[in-house]
């Protein structure tokens, strides 16, 4: 009697397993853990728009290996602990094949550790922190967007060409991000011949930058590099303008220094600001124009780098799964290493050694209140050495 019961139980279990095994028409599920509310909701919105547009296109063209793609969204509130909970839910309950969407670098690192334990792959399309694909790299984490180091390297190459042997002053917010961005750009700039005439770190949310303004004036630099962000940029640049400092000074900075969010508040003081980015809607190629038109038609908004990089990810995953002929973690990971695929900003390569995307970098300048492309740097010139030692 017990034996019969056991056999039936096994049989039921087996048939249940057989039923859940993928058949040709089963959707491939991609989990998206991204901030849909809170401070970073604007970024999460772009991530969502980019992923949805690419998914719609892929499904219209027959899906991935004949299977449609399905996106499953969860709100991570830009909070690493929430991101981990939601990712766990998607891995365990939602049975997703792949996961993306994390914005905050802390969320990406935390969800990456979870993915290692769960034996799944994730990719970030937004996080900038170099460590994600350097000293804190993970065999289960890929990054398809440009990291902070690529942005500053691109800017340094432009600087060497436009302002050779420039005298540079550095001004950063006094915390981890500010100090690391200044150190990174200083290293890149000094390598191409720039000299340092001073550096100062102001507190985050500083009211007055006037003491910095005075020191900048006394040091007589030709170029000012800054990595302050948000409202701090509004104050810094408008106070520099107030003290008449912007006339003969080129201001360059991190990609988060002047953004669509604070550009209008800075106004004229932002004119001439130069930064390095991985994407701009201005890129003049047929692929990008097609992408921008489709994106605008679907979402009534221009794509930014987050939207474009998220859009590109779906095509990377498609290419990898079709190369691996499977959605299994091991096979997809192998297929993703050294994968080359086409994105709106041109061909990208996922470097096998650290899982970082190598791509053409763009240098943009604020002209007439809008970002215009003023230069580009080839992927291999901006990527820097592979610093990942874990795999």
């Amino acid at each position, binding site marked *: 009697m017990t034996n019969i019961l056991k056999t039936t139980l096994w049989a039921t279990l087996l048939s249940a397993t057989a039923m859940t095994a993928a058949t040709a028409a089963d959707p491939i599920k991609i989990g998206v853990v991204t901030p849909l509310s809170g401070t970073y909701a604007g970024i999460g919105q772009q991530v969502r728009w980019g992923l949805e547009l690419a998914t719609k296109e892929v499904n219209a063209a027959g899906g991935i290996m004949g299977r449609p793609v399905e996106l499953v969204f969860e709100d991570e509130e830009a909070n690493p602990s929430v991101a981990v909970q939601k990712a766990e839910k998607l891995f365990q309950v939602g049975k997703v094949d792949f996961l993306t969407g994390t914005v905050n670098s802390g969320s990406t690192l935390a969800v990456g550790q979870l993915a290692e334990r769960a034996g799944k792959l994730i990719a970030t399309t937004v996080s900038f922190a170099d460590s994600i694909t350097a000293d804190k790299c993970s065999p289960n984490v890929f990054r398809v967007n440009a990291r902070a180091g690529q942005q500053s390297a691109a800017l340094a190459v432009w600087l060497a060409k436009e302002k050779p042997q420039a005298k540079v002053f550095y001004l950063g917010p006094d915390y981890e991000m500010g100090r690391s961005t200044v150190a990174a750009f200083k290293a890149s700039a000094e390598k191409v011949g720039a000299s340092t005439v001073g550096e100062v770190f102001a507190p985050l949310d500083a009211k007055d930058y006037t003491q910095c303004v*005075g020191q900048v004036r*006394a040091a007589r630099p030709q170029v000012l590099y800054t990595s302050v962000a948000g409202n701090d940029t509004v104050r810094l640049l408008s106070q520099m303008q*107030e003290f008449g400092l912007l006339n003969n000074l080129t201001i360059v900075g991190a990609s988060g220094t002047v953004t669509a969010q604070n550009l209008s508040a800075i106004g004229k003081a932002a004119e001439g600001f130069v930064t390095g980015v991985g994407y701009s809607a201005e890129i003049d190629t047929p692929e990008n124009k097609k992408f921008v038109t489709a994106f605008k038609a679907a979402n009534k908004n221009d794509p930014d780098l987050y939207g474009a990089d998220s859009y590109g990810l779906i095509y990377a995953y498609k290419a990898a799964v079709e190369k691996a002929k499977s959605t299994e973690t091991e096979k997809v990971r192998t297929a993703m290493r050294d994968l080359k695929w086409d994105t709106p900003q041109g061909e990208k390569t996922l470097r096998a050694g650290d899982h970082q995307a190598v791509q053409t970098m763009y240098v943009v300048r604020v002209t007439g209140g809008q970002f215009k492309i003023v230069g580009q740097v080839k992927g291999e010139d901006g990527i820097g050495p592979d610093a990942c030692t874990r795999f």
Partner: protein
Amino acid sequence: MVDYLQFVLAPQVITGLALGVAVILVALGLTIIFGLLDVINMSHGEFYALGAFIAFGLGSVGLPFWVLLVLVPLIMLPIGYIIERGLIQRVFHSHERHVTTLLLTFGLGLVLEDAFRLAFGPNPHKPEAPIQGAIEVIGIYLPLYRLFLIGIGSLVIVGVALVIYRTRLGAMVRAAAFDRHMAASLGVPVQRVYAGAFAFGVALAGLAGVLLAPIYSIFPTMGRDFILLAFTVVIVGGMGSIAGAVIAGLFLTQVQAISSLYISPVWADPIVFGIMVAMLMVRPQCLFGRLGHG
């Protein structure tokens, strides 16, 4: 060396002075409200922000800065009056007045901050300064708007002091602060004096908001910017003292401005708070006594 004096030190003293005047404007309202009502107004920073947002809202429909400078404090007056009569008076007579009014105003501040975010969005706005340009005096570069701020701020401060110490209205306010029962029995309408003083403090915060927006920009959490420094100024100057607020305001902002040249600017706040702690330990009554007591 001359470079340093011209480009760094001298402008820093002047901008420190401008910041000082700005902080005093915020601190004056705070100290009057404390001196008279014995209420620690935790939402004072948000009233400063409210002034800036009202000015921004009215400015975007075309009202010029000079009109706003007068209009915004006038709008703030009834708002302050209603808040005092409608909210603060309700908990004022409780045994734990300090706790209840502190919590009430703290909550009000949180509500206002979120209201700004809903109404104007999280991104910063920056009105153009009405006076552009700068003058150069012996190589020292001075933006005109900062000089204007020092001038108009000084006028307001002197005006407030004159009203409090030289008019019949001021005498009623000081009497009510000294002993409200005695003042009431002598025919001072204490309830209305309280509400009026609160409204006046709130209007000063609003005026500071209008004046400072072109320099420090407008955003929902801007109220937190000055509030800690303003509280420190009020405490060092002697809670409720007007002269104390002026002297402490000028002194502490100069300490901030000059110290940030020699050590990392990050230390400017700890130094100022350190002075406050030292003051409370050595001389707990601080620089001056309370309003109505000296």
